[in-house]
């Protein structure tokens, strides 16, 4: 009996070790970095033109009220926006350039961390204008700062300015897993929150979204002729969000979950004109793909089945 428990504990320790500190593929991480930082770069490049209005002295949230507006439970103690409002446009410009450099693989952990600080500064300086993509992107950026995300697919490597590729360290797989877990937490709780809503329960929530001309990119009035389809899509959304966090870890179910997620987010990007939100949510999917796919020497060996083999 004792022997059995001992072997179980040893196995658990081995599995734990493998999960948090096992080998991961740096190429996948680099691709994730490109998609995430590239998306944030595009999103904040657009915001650059309104940086004075949102974060400058003319912002509708006066600087002294920045933290005061948060309920006590959600209020941070030390504001990240250390710069004066008069410099907000320049700092925002630097932030946008940082994201471009990180997309190109120029920078490292410290630079990524600095970029995250700037991101948090702008996010909380004017929280009223925050998108979901800002909140999620911020979390991913912080985790990414703990990894060797610039080790591969870097412009510096291409220009041969960097030293040979470093060996994978302990922090990289650790934060790689954190990104995966964070995605699962986001899906789970956005699904649970929907269960509290009457329109999600009765299957008509998507109609409210389609009919809302402030949200829909196209005229979806015609969808009222297909209530069953709306109900099906509404319930599928909840089921997907609630079950993704569990089923994505099941080897056989993973391909279906990732494909469903791809369709779901492409749908959001197309119908609600939210391509950046979709890209930020889809970026971590890269980390769920089979690492064998990225270790192949040549793309000629590419096969669809390989894409989803367990990593």
């Amino acid at each position, binding site marked *: 009996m004792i022997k059995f428990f001992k072997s179980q504990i040893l196995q658990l320790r081995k599995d734990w070790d493998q999960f948090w500190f096992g080998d991961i593929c740096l190429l996948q991480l680099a691709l994730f970095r490109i998609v995430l930082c590239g998306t944030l770069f595009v999103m904040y490049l*657009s915001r650059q033109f309104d940086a004075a209005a949102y974060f400058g002295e003319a912002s509708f*949230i006066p600087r002294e009220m920045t933290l005061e507006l948060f309920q006590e439970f959600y209020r941070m*103690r030390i504001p990240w926006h250390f710069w004066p409002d008069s410099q907000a446009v320049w700092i925002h410009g630097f932030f946008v350039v940082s994201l471009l450099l990180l997309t190109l693989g120029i920078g490292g952990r410290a630079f990524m961390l600095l970029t995250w600080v700037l991101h948090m500064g702008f996010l909380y300086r004017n929280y009223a204008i925050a998108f979901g993509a800002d909140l999620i992107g911020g979390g991913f950026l912080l985790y990414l700062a703990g990894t060797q995300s610039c080790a591969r697919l870097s412009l510096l490597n291409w220009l041969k300015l960097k030293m040979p590729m470093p060996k994978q360290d302990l922090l990289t797989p650790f934060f790689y897993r954190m990104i995966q877990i964070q995605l699962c937490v986001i899906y789970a709780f956005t699904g649970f929150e*929907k269960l509290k809503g009457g329109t999600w329960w009765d299957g008509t929530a998507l109609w409210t979204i389609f009919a809302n001309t402030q949200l829909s*990119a196209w005229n979806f009035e015609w969808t009222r002729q297909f209530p069953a389809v709306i109900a099906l899509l509404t319930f599928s959304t909840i089921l997907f969000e609630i079950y993704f966090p569990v089923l994505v870890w099941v080897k056989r179910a993973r391909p279906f979950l990732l494909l469903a997620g791809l369709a779901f987010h492409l749908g959001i990007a197309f119908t609600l004109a939210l391509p950046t939100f979709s890209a930020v949510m889809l970026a971590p999917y890269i980390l769920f793909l089979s690492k064998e796919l990225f270790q192949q020497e040549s793309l000629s060996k590419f096969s669809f089945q390989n894409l989803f083999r367990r990593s």
Partner: protein
Amino acid sequence: MKLSVKFFFKFFLSIFAIFHVTLIIVLANGPSILGRLNPPWLIDYANQMGFNQTWNFFSPDPSHINYIHYLVFFDSNVGNSTTISAEVKEPVEGFIPEQLKTVELDSSKRRMLHAVRYMSLDESRTEKLMAPWLCKKFPGATHVRLKHILDILPNLDQASIDPDRPLEDLIQSKPYRTVEFDCPSSLEAPLTEIDEAGG
């Protein structure tokens, strides 16, 4: 020696993993009893790092059409003039977001739609933030009137009864709060470089 350093590092990271994952799960439902039981320093950590989030997108229910209609008065337009001016300007009317009932494809401008929702979560914010901001935006303004309007969309049953009836006929416009605000005289000086993003 090297092995033991690695072991302790892994041990430390493992403890941190348990701590952090528990925290992001508990705080995703922060207002629950588990969230409230957290010691303040833990909440401070989560707030500082941006992990005290509830991740409620389009939930618990998707929002209806939401906007602010404002009127900015100058001098004696509203009958309670606080300043004397030789020239009486006509009131200025506007909406936030500017693109009232159509989707804003410019992601930066679209943020103002989120700002309006942010105001609607706590109506005092309209008075604290939007009204003084409009006073600054329109130099010489003496009074601002803001109406927060909610266009309630018909539910699917109502909308599908008569599919040929335009949806606009079924929308119920509901002004649910009006804010009257006297601009402080100190705000009458124009601010430089006020962008038009806010409408």
